[in-house]
């Protein structure tokens, strides 16, 4: 195969598998920037995936057709936000250990969704398959551009563009708006922020709810673009991969975007590697572990120290220094 032919396969599938990670990692960035560790991203994705499948099926029954998966994404955003408030309640109001609370979110999400799937679909272990997906398409006009057309505007879902746009939006909000400044300040030095009249508790609740919204969206996007149904195995580890992308990206939305794309690229390379002359002779197992090895190498040497926000994981107690 020609180099171009290989790239035409690798790049679109890298972008496709990176999309849910980008969205979820953005959620992680928002939460942790405000000083709340969110291990619960996996659980939030599970909730989103569940809602994505169930509501797509329901909207299909209502006769909404191709709009069903898009509407279900909106529901998943709301449901993810609502579910993440549990994490907010435990870790902000009740000052529980944020890691423990996040892990609890993961437990709860999986048990709850599996239980509900069984209740909703006559004891079945998984939901039926959805009829209307968000499919890979060619973007009109743009996909005819030589070279970049086949790479970035062909065989791609619109949700991927949504993820990239949202990454830029989140970056702008965090670094260029007063809201973002407040968000960062409560994550770095909540006491100082409080003395300047910022409501730390409120900011943190908003950030956690936003992370739930993004996590839910990420899970739902995975279901409507890739898995097409929901079962206990659907989301398995993507949330943690998103967490890694967030750290890799140094808690920066654009960094997280790049890291998620990098993960997607590495995975895609490991899959298509067998068709590339140079990589063909390498045993498959090395290609399979390549994404993780590359990540470790990158973290160890190339991006420098990954430093979290100063008050990340520390509950804020008014008046205590």
């Amino acid at each position, binding site marked *: 195969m020609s180099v171009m032919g290989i790239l035409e396969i690798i790049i679109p599938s890298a972008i496709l*598998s990176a999309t849910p990670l980008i969205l979820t990692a953005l959620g992680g960035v928002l939460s942790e920037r405000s000083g709340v560790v969110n291990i619960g991203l996996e659980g939030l994705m599970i909730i989103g995936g569940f809602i994505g499948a169930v509501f797509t099926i329901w909207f299909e029954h209502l006769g909404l057709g191709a709009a069903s998966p898009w509407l279900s994404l909106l529901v998943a955003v709301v449901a993810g936000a609502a579910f993440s408030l549990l994490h907010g309640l435990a870790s902000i109001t009740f000052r529980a250990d944020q890691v423990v609370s996040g892990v609890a979110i*993961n437990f709860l999400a999986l*048990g709850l969704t599996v239980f509900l799937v069984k209740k909703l679909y006559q004891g079945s272990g998984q939901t039926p398959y959805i009829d209307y997906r968000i499919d890979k398409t060619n973007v009109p006009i743009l996909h005819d551009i030589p070279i970049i057309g086949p790479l970035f505007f062909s*065989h791609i879902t619109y949700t991927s563009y949504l993820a990239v746009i949202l990454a830029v939006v989140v970056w702008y909000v965090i670094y260029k708006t007063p809201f973002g400044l407040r968000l960062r300040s409560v994550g770095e030095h909540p006491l100082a922020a409080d003395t300047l009249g910022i409501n730390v508790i409120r900011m943190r609740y908003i950030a956690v709810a936003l992370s739930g919204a993004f996590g839910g969206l990420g899970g739902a996007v995975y279901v409507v673009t890739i898995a*097409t149904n929901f079962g206990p195995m659907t989301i*398995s580890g993507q949330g943690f991969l998103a967490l890694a992308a967030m750290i890799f990206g140094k808690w920066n939305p654009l960094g997280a975007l790049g890291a998620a794309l990098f993960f997607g690229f590495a*995975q895609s390379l490991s899959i298509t590697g*067998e068709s590339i002359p140079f990589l063909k002779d390498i045993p498959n197992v090395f290609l399979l572990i390549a994404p993780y090895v590359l990540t470790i190498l990158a973290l160890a040497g190339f991006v420098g120290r990954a430093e979290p926000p100063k008050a990340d994981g520390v509950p804020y107690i008014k008046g205590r220094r």
Partner: protein
Amino acid sequence: MKKRVLFLFAAMLVFGTVLAACGTSGGGTSNGKKDGVKVAMVTDVGGVNDKSFNQSAWEGLQKFGKDFNLKQNTDYKYLQSTSSNDYEPNLTQLIQQKYDLVFGIGYLMQNAVKNVAERNKNAHLAIVDSVVDAPNVVSINFKEEQGSFLVGVVAGLMTKTNKVGFIGGIDSALIKKFENGFKAGVKSVNPKAQIFTQYAGSFDAADKGQAIAATFYGKGADIIYHASGATGNGVFTEAKTRKKNGQNVWVIGVDRDQYDAGLPEDVTLTSMVKRVDRAVYDVSKMVKDGKFPGGKTLEFGLKDDAVGLSEHHQHIPEDVLKKVDEYKSKIISGEITPPKTDKEYKQFVANLNK
């Protein structure tokens, strides 16, 4: 995988105590007919509506009950496990209720069946899709290579591009049986066909399945056979998307009839089904006839009608089906032995070329 089960367990503790109570209630004193036979099964966490092994096994048991006038819940019944920690108590409970044969469904229950068998030397147990080495346990396995050979014949005859693909879950002896049987089937009818194979390294990575399928279809394959569990969902998604855009591609499903997974674009050519119901029925009957094959590993294959093409195969033309039947009888008669391992496959191809 194990982590998943643990996760499930913890959460189910919170939500599922009521369900668990339902599962473990039931008459402990009922004894049924003295001369009759009592058989029961324990599902794994999938439950009897899982559209897969548990459901199939329960259908086999129900048919057995109907054919021999047994009463449900006293002579034959199932207990559902809500977590992996239910396996042993459920098995033990059924043994204490004097069931003559208790099935554990699925390889996840291997350890549970082993432990319970050791503690209850007089009990008769069976494990599906795994092997337990104990004198009072019968292990029920399938000759996946035979069924895979037949779908390989279908793929070899129906490919228009002369390129087909195989996507496996985890590279293991079990999945190798699927791969080598399939490849042998393809090569038998279409020696020039090119076969791409790749393992996703996991049974639950739909995104990898989709990426591999995209690569295969991109390289010109038009039929992909997957033996990769939920990873296969991604394969179906890719095929459906391509079919929607006018490309003529197919997927061959696995384990159960995956016709529904190919909808609405209808990309499922056929599926290689494992008829757990047949195996459960047969073993139950052996026990009824007083011939419990304890300690043995039974392999159910084409001869027992326990592997083969699914009922949904309307896209396969008549002459291809005829060819499939031809090969089926050749396998049953022993004229052809589909290979299970890479080594056997090499040998098989070498013999073909003679």
